[in-house]
Structure formats: structure tokens, C-alpha cells
């Protein structure tokens, strides 16, 4: 498995390079110039040129890219143009918040989603199945900012259980995690249910029944195990999705995090920060795919076999 892992990681290198090119170049299409924020109004073109030189914006794009990439590889994400401090500091401030929120949301949607999916699959086509899948559908069709606002209105304003905004203590995580988690729950529950039903129809399940095993044991010990393989793969693939998808929720709850940092920097044309944020997300995505593959291998001997 180790050679496979090394090969797999090496395969990420061209992907990383491609992503870095996309991230680097896309931002140069954004109209507006961060230098404008820095220059004294009415500054001379010389002052402007000097400022551009200072941030390396006067070189050709490929050269800028080369410099940027080599800096990034050395762990230097540059200096934020508007915030005037190392981008790494900003990321270091934001990332823990995002990881906490994203991680908990992932955990929530996995646990709740799988549970609901299993219950729905076991009670297939009965009212409990319909109720769960209906609830899940409705849950997934509510815009997350709207859901967040409604949750604030109910649980913070009316009931006073949780803080309205910010990131102070675990209480402030409950509503944001719930807001993001509910959307993810729908996805997980749906995939779990479908995979369970699909797996239940497989030949080996008939034989398990013929062996006299109890249906519950068959469902939980065998069918669920198979059903979880796609669930885990998709969840791992969606790590970046969950981190980035927290944007709206972070804004609604006025929480610090990669999303708010990205939105703000995007609005301010603070290239180095936007680039770093996107790079972080892209790396989370790549890491997610890798983890998905590893988890799949751990869960399925056939995949393991294909690796060697």
C-alpha cells in the first residue's frame, strides 16, 4: 500500500500545479487594482510604479507566477495588501475557526445523515421512510442563509439559548454547525438510503438470509458496510465543499473563518489573500480525495488489491 500511497501523492503534484495556475491567473481577471487602495490619491505614475514594484506587480504574469509559486512552496504566502500583514497570519487566524466549524458540521451530517439514511432504508416505503426523506428534502432546499436567520430568530432571539453571532465558546458553534450540517445531512441520508437499498438487492445478501442470519444483523453488519463505501468517498470528496460552503453561514453568524476572509479579500481585491484562501481550499479538496481513496481502500479489500 505504501508504494501506492507515494504514487498517489505524486499524482497530486500536476493537479496542484494546474490548480495553482488557475488560482493565480483567474484573479488577474478581476477588475480593480489593489494598488489603488495604497496610493495617495493624485499620486504620480512614478509612485505607482514604485508601489507596483514593491509588490512585484510590475513583472510579467509568468514571472509573477513563478515567484509566487516558489514562495508558496517555501511556506511564504506573501503579504496582504490591504491588511498589511503576512497572509499566513490571516490564514492562521481564520483556519482553526473554519476547521472547527467544518469538522463539526461534517461529523454532524455524517452521524445524523447515516442514521436517518439507515432508518429510512430499513423502513423502506413505509411512512417513517417517507417522513425522513421528505424532511431531508425540505431541509436541503432551504437556502442556508435563510435557515441560519430563522435559527437565530428562534434559538437566539426568542429562546436565548445560543449567541447570535461571533465565535466565543462552544455555544456559538451550535447554530452554525446545525445550519451547515442540515444541508449535508440531506446528502448523506439520501446516499446512505440509496446505497443501502442497492446493496440489499445484491446476491450475497440473499445468501446471508439463506444462512439464517437475522435481517437486522444483515443490514447493519453487511449491507451498511457496503453502503458506507460510497458515503465515505463522497464525503471525503466534499471536504472542500463543506469548508467553502461555510461562506454564507460564516457571514450570517458574523464568524471569522476562511469564508469571511475570502469574501472580504475578494471585495478588496487583495490578491495574495484570495490566492491563499483558494489554495487552502484546493489543498483541502486534494487531501479529501486522497483520504477518500485511503478510506475506500481500508473498507474494501478489492480496492486494496487493485492498489498493489
Amino acid at each position: 500500500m505504501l508504494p501506492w500511497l507515494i504514487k498517489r501523492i505524486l499524482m497530486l503534484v500536476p493537479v496542484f500545479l494546474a490548480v495553482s495556475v488557475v488560482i493565480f491567473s483567474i484573479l488577474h481577471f478581476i477588475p480593480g487594482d489593489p494598488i489603488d487602495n495604497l496610493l495617495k490619491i493624485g499620486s504620480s505614475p512614478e509612485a505607482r510604479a514604485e508601489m507596483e514594484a514593491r509588490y512585484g506587480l510590475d513583472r510579467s504574469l509568468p514571472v509573477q507566477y513563478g515567484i509566487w509559486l516558489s514562495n508558496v512552496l517555501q511556506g511564504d504566502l506573501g503579504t496582504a495588501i490591504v491588511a498589511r500583514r503576512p497572509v499566513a497570519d490571516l490564514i492562521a487566524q481564520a483556519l482553526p475557526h473554519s476547521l472547527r466549524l467544518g469538522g463539526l458540521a461534517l461529523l454532524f451530517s455524517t452521524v445524523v445523515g447515516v442514521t436517518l439514511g439507515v432508518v429510512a432504508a430499513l423502513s423502506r416505503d413505509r411512512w417513517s421512510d417517507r417522513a425522513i426523506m421528505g424532511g431531508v428534502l425540505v431541509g436541503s432546499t432551504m437556502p442556508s442563509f435563510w435557515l441560519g436567520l430563522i435559527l437565530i430568530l428562534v434559538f437566539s432571539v426568542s429562546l436565548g439559548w445560543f449567541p447570535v453571532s461571533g465565535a466565543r465558546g462552544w455555544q456559538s458553534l451550535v447554530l452554525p454547525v446545525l445550519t451547515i450540517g442540515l444541508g449535508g445531512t440531506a446528502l448523506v441520508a439520501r446516499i446512505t438510503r440509496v446505497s443501502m437499498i442497492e446493496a440489499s438487492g445484491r446476491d450475497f445478501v440473499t445468501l446471508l438470509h439463506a444462512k439464517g442470519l437475522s435481517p437486522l444483523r444483515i443490514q447493519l453488519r453487511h449491507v451498511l458496510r457496503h453502503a458506507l463505501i460510497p458515503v465515505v468517498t463522497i464525503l471525503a470528496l466534499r471536504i472542500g465543499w463543506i469548508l467553502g460552503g461555510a461562506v454564507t453561514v460564516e457571514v450570517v453568524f458574523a464568524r471569522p473563518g476562511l469564508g469571511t476572509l475570502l469574501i472580504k479579500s475578494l471585495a478588496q481585491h487583495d490578491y495574495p489573500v484570495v490566492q491563499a484562501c483558494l489554495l487552502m481550499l484546493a489543498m483541502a479538496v486534494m487531501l479529501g480525495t486522497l483520504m477518500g481513496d485511503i478510506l475506500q481502500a481500508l473498507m474494501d479489500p478489492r480496492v486494496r488489491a487493485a492498489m498493489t
Partner: protein
Amino acid sequence: MTRLFRKTLLSASVSLAALIAAQAATAQEAVFVMATNEVGAPTYNPIKATMLNTATGLIFDRLVSQAADLSYHPWLAESWEEAPDGMAWTFKLKQGVTFHNGEPFNAETVKGWLELFKTTEGENGYMAEAIASVEVVDEHTVKFVMARPEPNLLYNLSSTFMGVVEPKSFAALGDNYGVTEVYGTGPFKLESFAIGQETVLVRNEGYTWGPEVAANHGPAKVERLTFREIPEDSTAFLELKTGGVDFLLSVPADLMGEVQKEANLAVLTMPGQDVWYMPINVTKAPFDDIRVREAAAKAINQEEILASVFGGVGAVADTFLISALPESHVPDGAKIKFDPAHSNALLDEAGWAMGEGGVRMKDGQPLKVTLWTQSDSIFRRLTEVVQAQLKAVGIEAEITTFDSSMIRDQYKTGEQHLAVRSYNWDNADIVDWFFGGDRLGYPNVSMFNDPKAEELRAAAMTGAKNMDERIANFTAYHEYVLTQFPMAPIYQPVQAMAYSTDRIALPEKIDAPAFGAAAFLDLEVKE
């Protein structure tokens, strides 16, 4: 290795002590929410920044303080004297003052600071422009040699931008100054700062040199202040309502009623320093025609806006300056007031005839203009009303919303016809800032560059030998600008703050134009 170990141990014990101290201090701490127009200030560097928040004024003291009646009083300067010809100022400095990093405050540091202020690249240099050089008379006396008389000097010295900076650390820290570390002489020290999120200040225990206008000269009564930045007013209000924060440094007019509904919340109002207005781009057709500008300006129904958008709190604006300033007292004829009949007549006269669908037409072209605003909800709401009011005289305005931090760049393109903006300043030199011919694009969003105005502007900015002359010159400049209709004044709010009466005890009187150092020195937290 051992040194490293000892260092680690030391820092660990220090941080543990700090932690325990922080725990003990929780009783004497309060959480504030920054005013929405101060959200996102990137630095606490008063020399470089174009935007400074309330916390800056608590870190840095100024030489001069201002009372509610706008008169000047001692702070770091005990007394001062202006030469009869206005060409020199002598300041006697308070003794025993130290910076947060232990450096002494004296004539040398004032000289060092002002040199930094004049030489550092930034937009604030004009405030010290009239000072030719600084002479150290003795350790506690400093003399400003002037290049020209500057009646506005005391105002400038009382502004947060001229908070006295410790020069050595400023030079040493470079770009990190004001971001990671910052040293002033103020009643509070910076503990932590996350841009756009939160600033924590702790009490300067040795502080005894508070401004004359404060009852308590130090140290402050509250040990620890947390300033949260919440961009959305309604979120901030809900935080206050649910006890998440103790004090909102700004409350929009439409939420004041909501605050008053709550038994344990109260509103604090102070005279406003803001003006909301609609800049009109004079270079962009059809607004290159002064008649069309006047028509647009007079289509704005300030009374309706005051009543409906701002719940009747505050006052209408009919000049560009807050009415507390003497320079705002221009003849009635120069004031810009709602007059739809006149607007319609002017548009007819300019050849814009009323067309179908209520939009005026000329040469087959509809009277369609762009109207820019920023994404904060109050701006969007006001802009929509402005849009409807323009529509009423046949001008169709198309709104484009920009992020508030981005809109300044956008103005530099000069592509907008109209915009809705606000400023916060209590000095007449704001007319120069927004209509000076050398600041086209931004801040001169109106792209106003008029030879006569430039003459009047020079006289107002640099030609006055004393305050009376300055007021007269600025009034003339202001009046002329108004008659050219490069903008339409809309509204002047009051400064409204909201706080929890369970948690906060305000001083009886806040003798300052704004809720700053003086108020924070006297403020108490209830147990």
C-alpha cells in the same frame, strides 16, 4: 538548549499569569460593538491610516482635547500659545507621561512624531502641512514654527489621526506598526487585534493624564475592553438584546425604537458628525448641464427620507456641512431643498420632456443614469428611496451595489452618475477634501473642478490668518460649491449608541464631541 528551555518556561508562566489575570478581570470587562462605519479598519497606525476606529482614540492621547461645545482643552499639552502673527505655536507638555513601552513622553518625542507624520507616505500629511519645523525648547516645551498661519491647527491636533505615536517603535516596527504592536500614551493598551473581527484593549494601570474634559483623569475604571466588529446593524442589535455584548457604538435610526422597547437597554445620543449626501458627477452627461444637476438635487425629498428611512431621528441636511459648524450657515438661497416643481421646470427647460412610463426623453434618449451605493443595508434602503424620488421627476436611476471596501476604487473610474454616500467629520475642511480639484475620482466623487471654486478653496485652506477669517473663507467656498450642485445633501443623523443598563453605567456628562477617551475613562461596568 537550556536557554531555550528557560525561555519557554518563562513565557509559559507569563501566559499562565496573564490567563489568571484575565480570569480575575472578567468582572471588570465590557464588550463593545464597533460602529458599522468603522468596521474593517486594517490598522491602528494613526499616521498612515485613512480610517481609524474608536479604539485608536483610547490607545493614543492627543496634545489637545475638545469639549462638547467644540472648545479646546489641555490633554498631553498643559497649555499653548499662538504667536500674534500665527507663525508659531508653543506647547507646554504634561510631565510624567510615559508610552506603553516605557519610553518617556517629552518634547523630543513630539518632535520625532511630527517629523514622522510629515514624512510618512499617506493621506494625512495635510494636517501638519502648515508646520514648517518643530523646535525643542526644553524637555517639556515644544515650539512649532509655521509655514503659514493655520487657524485649524488645534482641531487637527485634537483629531485621532494626530494621536501621539512613540517614534522609536514606529520606526522599528515598519509595516507591523499598528497591526501586531502599537504604543501610545493612552488609557488602554492593545492586547490583540484580528482585522475585521475583534480588538482587545487592557487598562493602562499607570495612566493619570486624562484629558481635561473627563471627570476621571485615570486610570480607567474598566480593566478590559473588547471591541467586536459586526458589519450588520441588526446582528449587533440582536447581540445587545440577547446579552452577547454590552454596548453598541452605533445604532441606526430605524433600530432606535427597537432598543427603546427593551426594558434593560437604553439609547445614548450625541450631536451628529455625519452627513449623508448624493454626489453628482459633473463631468458625465447629462449632469454636465447644471440645470439637470439642480433638478436632480432638488428632487430629493429630505423630509420624507428623515421620516421614513430614519424614523424622524436626526435632521435633514440642506448644506454639505453639519449644522453645528458655523460654515454651514449659508444664505437660504444657497441651501439645497426639495422642490419638485422647480426640478420639473428645469428638466423641461433643459430639453428633457416627460416621456412614456414616466421617464424623460431627449433626442430619443431616455433620462437614464447610474446610481451607486454600498452594500450595507441602510445604504441600500436609502438608495432605493432616492431612486424612487428621482423617478418621480422622470429620472430613471439604475442602482449598482458595491462592497463598502471596494466602492472607493470604483469611484476612481469616474463612471458613475450619482451615488449615495456619507461622511463623518466635524470640520469645514471636508469641503476641500471632497471637492478639491486635485482629488478627482476619490475622494472628489463629483469630479468637481471649477476655477472659481479652486480660488475660494485656496483662500479657505491656507489664506486665513485667524479663525474668523477661516470661517468666512470656508463659508464662501462652501456656498459657492452648493450653487454648482455637485451633490445633493440628504440627512444628518445624531450619533446614537445603545447599551445595556444592567451592565454599563455612563458618566453623567460626556463633555466631548464624540464618545471617545473621555467617555471611556469615566465609564463603569456594573457587577
